[in-house]
C-alpha cells in the first residue's frame, strides 16, 4: 500500500485576519514616508544639480515642479517629511522606554499624525497667504 503523502503544514493567516492597530498602521506609514523621502532626496539632488548646471536645466526643473502634477507632489513631500520627523520623535521617545503604557502610546501615535497634518497644512496655507508660489 502506498503511504499517503503528507502535505506541508499550512501557515495560519496573519495580515489577512489581524485587526489593524493604530501603531501598526503608523509603522507602515512611517516606512512608506521613509521610502517616499528616499525618492524625494534623489529629486532634491536632481534639482540642485540643475540649479548648479545653469538657467536652462533649472528652467526645465521649474516647469516640471510648476506643472499640474508638481504642486500635489510638493505638498505630499512636505507632509511626508513632517510625518516622518514626528514619527521619528515618537520612536525616540519609545526607545527611552517612555509612553509604552495604554493610553499614552495611543495618544502619542495619534499626536504624530495630527501634528504632521496640521504643520503641513499651516505651511502651505501660510505660503499661499504670503503670496509665495511654488517654483
Amino acid at each position, binding site marked *: 500500500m502506498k503511504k499517503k503523502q503528507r502535505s506541508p503544514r499550512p501557515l495560519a493567516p496573519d495580515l489577512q485576519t489581524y485587526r489593524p492597530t493604530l501603531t501598526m498602521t503608523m*509603522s507602515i506609514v512611517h516606512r512608506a514616508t521613509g521610502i517616499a523621502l528616499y525618492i524625494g532626496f534623489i529629486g532634491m539632488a536632481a534639482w540642485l544639480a540643475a540649479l548648479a548646471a545653469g538657467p536652462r536645466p533649472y528652467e526645465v526643473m521649474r516647469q516640471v515642479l510648476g506643472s499640474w502634477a508638481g504642486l500635489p507632489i510638493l505638498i505630499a513631500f512636505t507632509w511626508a517629511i513632517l510625518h516622518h520627523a514626528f514619527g521619528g520623535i515618537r520612536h525616540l521617545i519609545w526607545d527611552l522606554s517612555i509612553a509604552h503604557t495604554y493610553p499614552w502610546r495611543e495618544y502619542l501615535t495619534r499626536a504624530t499624525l495630527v501634528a504632521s497634518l496640521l504643520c503641513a497644512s499651516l505651511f502651505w496655507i501660510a505660503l499661499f497667504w504670503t503670496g509665495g508660489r511654488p517654483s
Partner: protein
Amino acid sequence: MKSFLPLNWGVEAASRIARGRIWPAKNTTGPIRTLEIYRYDPDAENGPHLDTYSIDQDDCGPMVLDALVKIKNEIDPTLTFRRSCREGVCGSCSMNIGGRNWLACTQAMDDIDGPIRIFPLSHMRVVKDLVIDQSHLFDQHKLIQPWLQMEGPEPERERLQSPEERAELDGFYECILCFSCTGGCPSYWWNGDRYLGPAVLLNAYRWLIDSRDEATGKRLDDLEDPFRLYRCHTIMNCTKTCPKGLEPAKAIAKIKAMLVARQQ
C-alpha cells in the same frame, strides 16, 4: 476595518482557507452565538477551512474557551485545541480571536461583536485545527538560556537579592509563554526564523537584569545581532496583545539601551 487584506490574499495554496461546514444549532432555547472556527486536519484530503458553529449563549460560560469546550462536547468532538488551566496562567489556549491574539480562557464573548472568528496564532505552522507547532518558539527560548547562571560551587542557602533588586523584575518575569505577542508581531511574520520575537526577548531581558545572574555580558553578546534583536521596529502589537498586560516592546527597548550603553 476588520483587517488589511482579504482572507486568502497572497496565501500559498496549502494554506488557503475554504468555506467549511455550517453546523446547525442543536437544542437551543436562548440567544444564539455564532463562531467561525479555523479547521485543518492533516489526515484529510482537503486543506484548511472555516466551519461555522452556533451555540446557545444561555447554556454556555462567558469565555471563548467555554464555547470551544461546549462545541467539542456537544457538537463536534473532532475540534482540536490546547487548553489547560482555563484561568490565564498556563498560556496554552492562545489563539487569534476576533482579529487579535489572546487567551481563549480570558476573552469574554460579550466583548466581541458579531460572529466570533477564531484562527490559530497568527503566522504559525498549524498541526491541527487551533494547535500550532511551537517547537521553533521553544527552541528560540532555549537559545537565550532562560536560567540563572552563576559561577562557583552551589551555595549552602538561597541566593540573596534585595527587595529593590527583586522589584526590578516586576513586569518582566510574569510571562506565561503563550506567544500571543510573538504571533502578533509583523517583524516575526517576515523574519521569524532569525528574529527571536517579543516573548523570548522579554524573557531574555528578565535574565539580563536579574541581580543574581553573572552572565549578563555573554547574554548581551548572544543578542548583538541585526536579526535576533534588531528586527524589532517598535510596532507595538506585542504590548497591545499581551493577555498578561506585560510590555515586551519596553523590555526590548531596554535591551537596546543596554547594548548602546556598553559601547559608550
